[in-house]
């Protein structure tokens, strides 16, 4: 295991103001801001996989986007490899962005439909002057191999690939810029179960082989259980519980975590009438 850099997030917050209409402007009213992420702190150790779980609207995606500065935080600190990321600009910011990559949820729209797989991977490497990118074929083949795709995939276009294959290509493209941290934002959620398992294993392999640190955002707790070393549970913009995955899942301390775990559908057969209790939210 290579010792890579540490990522540290402290008191990160972001709220989205509801749109202010002209009537509000006249009345000098401020529209209430909706806190998407509220005072979130955590650490990501080198080679660690941190699960980020929560329902829709819990702020997990906004948090993930703030870390790579796709969304500008309102407050808080992001320290990566000892450097305050928020103070960076220009070349230094680009370099930090290179070292933190993101894989998005929807494999059907995260690739440019007009670009072949090889061109997309090569472009990512060339933009950041990655070594080896001067030999296109070997470069592309190397990264396709990382994600267990045959080198011939390079000539294909996204539309010719299945969802799982596209997601592998998206991962290969992210790897081609040479990141230390990968943020997987619901990266397996849209895929079939059998393909999900393959990709979860791929993430584990990449952590082992490349020493990547991974933030694994998912709404499915079971997916996080399979890959994450530690888990942070988010609810309404806050981290309500954080700890080693096994501990949190076996003995949850927070009420919300408990309700998530209780509602998790289990393939072990349990008749509804005995197990489920109906509540109206």
């Amino acid at each position: 295991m290579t010792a890579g850099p540490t990522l540290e997030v402290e008191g990160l917050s972001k709220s989205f103001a509801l749109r202010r209409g002209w009537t509000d402007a006249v009345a000098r009213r401020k529209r209430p801001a909706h806190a998407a992420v509220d005072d979130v702190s955590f650490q990501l150790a080198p080679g660690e996989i941190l699960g980020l779980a929560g329902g829709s609207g819990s702020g997990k995606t906004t948090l993930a986007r703030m870390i790579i500065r796709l969304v500008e935080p309102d407050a808080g600190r992001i320290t990566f490899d000892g450097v305050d990321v928020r103070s960076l600009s220009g070349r230094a910011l680009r370099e930090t962005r290179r070292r933190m990559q993101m894989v998005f949820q929807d494999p059907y729209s995260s690739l440019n439909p007009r670009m072949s797989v090889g061109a997309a991977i090569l472009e990512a490497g060339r933009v950041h002057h990655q070594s080896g990118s001067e030999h296109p074929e070997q470069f592309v083949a190397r990264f396709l191999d990382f994600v267990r795709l045959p080198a011939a995939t390079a000539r294909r276009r996204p539309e010719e690939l299945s969802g799982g294959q596209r997601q592998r290509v998206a991962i290969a493209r992210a790897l081609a810029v040479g990141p230390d941290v990968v943020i997987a934002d619901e990266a397996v959620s849209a895929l079939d179960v059998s393909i999900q398992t393959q990709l979860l294993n791929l993430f584990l392999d990449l952590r082992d082989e490349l020493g990547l640190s991974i933030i694994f955002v998912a709404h499915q707790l079971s997916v996080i259980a399979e890959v994450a070393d530690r888990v942070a549970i988010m609810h309404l913009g806050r981290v309500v519980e954080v700890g080693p995955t096994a501990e949190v899942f076996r003995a949850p301390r927070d009420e919300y975590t408990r309700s998530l775990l209780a509602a998790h559908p289990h393939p072990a057969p349990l008749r509804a009438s005995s197990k489920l209790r109906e509540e109206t939210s």
Partner: protein
Amino acid sequence: MTDPLLNVEELSIAFRQRRGELTVVRDVSFDVGVGEVVGLVGESGSGKSVSCRSILRLMPAHGVMRARAIEFLGRDVTKLSDRELRDHRRHNVGMVFQDPYSCLNPTQRVGEQVAEALRVNAGMSKIDARARTIELFESVGIDRGAERQRSYPHELSGGMRQRVMIAIAISAGPKLLIGDEPTTALDVTTQAQILALMSRLRDDTGMAVLLVSHDFGVVAQVCDRVVVMYGGRVMESGPVTQVCTEPQHPYTRALLESIPRLEAAGRRVRREGIPGQPPNPADVGEGCPFADRCAHASARCSSVDMSLRPVGPSHVTACPFVGEWSDPPGATESSRVGGPS
């Protein structure tokens, strides 16, 4: 066994193309008893969604369905006239889809939409329909119904919208409720509530439920029986307890084993999963569609007869070689390498 309600026999569905046809469902047979909850499980491309729509004869453009019979209460749906088909759709079967938002009219109050269904399908007067709407809202777990019925779809949460859809679906008192991935777009906690609602409705009204889902966990929670589909074919079907604990088809077993589980937390083992990709309908021919991903496959699988063979009480499988590969389940997890401690 309960009395039969729906009996689908040898259903095949194809899409017409310029050159010939693309078959996406082959010889699928299953049945649903009165008041029974049956799950139709499969991954994308398994043909589960089009299969369930055939019960209403809802086919996409270019879709052609053939079946020996689709019997609903003894009448063959495939032979209904247009008028009879409309009655069948109105009174016998209610349907709920994955995305409640796109199924509701965004410019109309939800109460009006339910009332409209009542007026059209149950022939109620405006006043009766309004009163019944509030009752229906109550029965699908929407409290403060009188107030909520004045909401527009975008003012409701996903779970509430799905409850409205269910209210519309059951407005004419159908004998079968079809849910096509009804909880896939919802949070787990909401999902649990909707599933509980569906099984309570079954208990209260005796209505049967056909639940189409990609998620074995969902099906296991509410269903009595389950039909497992893959590559347009039925692989296995039987009581949900049986299928989940003693699957009698290599696909079912591989699928169950590849499902991520909460118990995996902190364990240093890696799930094996199913290698390869789900099949393209164009590449599926005779024989077992799972053969090229199956750990137990041999040459004979490419020409195997896929008719269903009994392996237990109302438990059938398409794999004739069941007896030959029965090693104890759970032995396929290999040790996970590396990782920080």
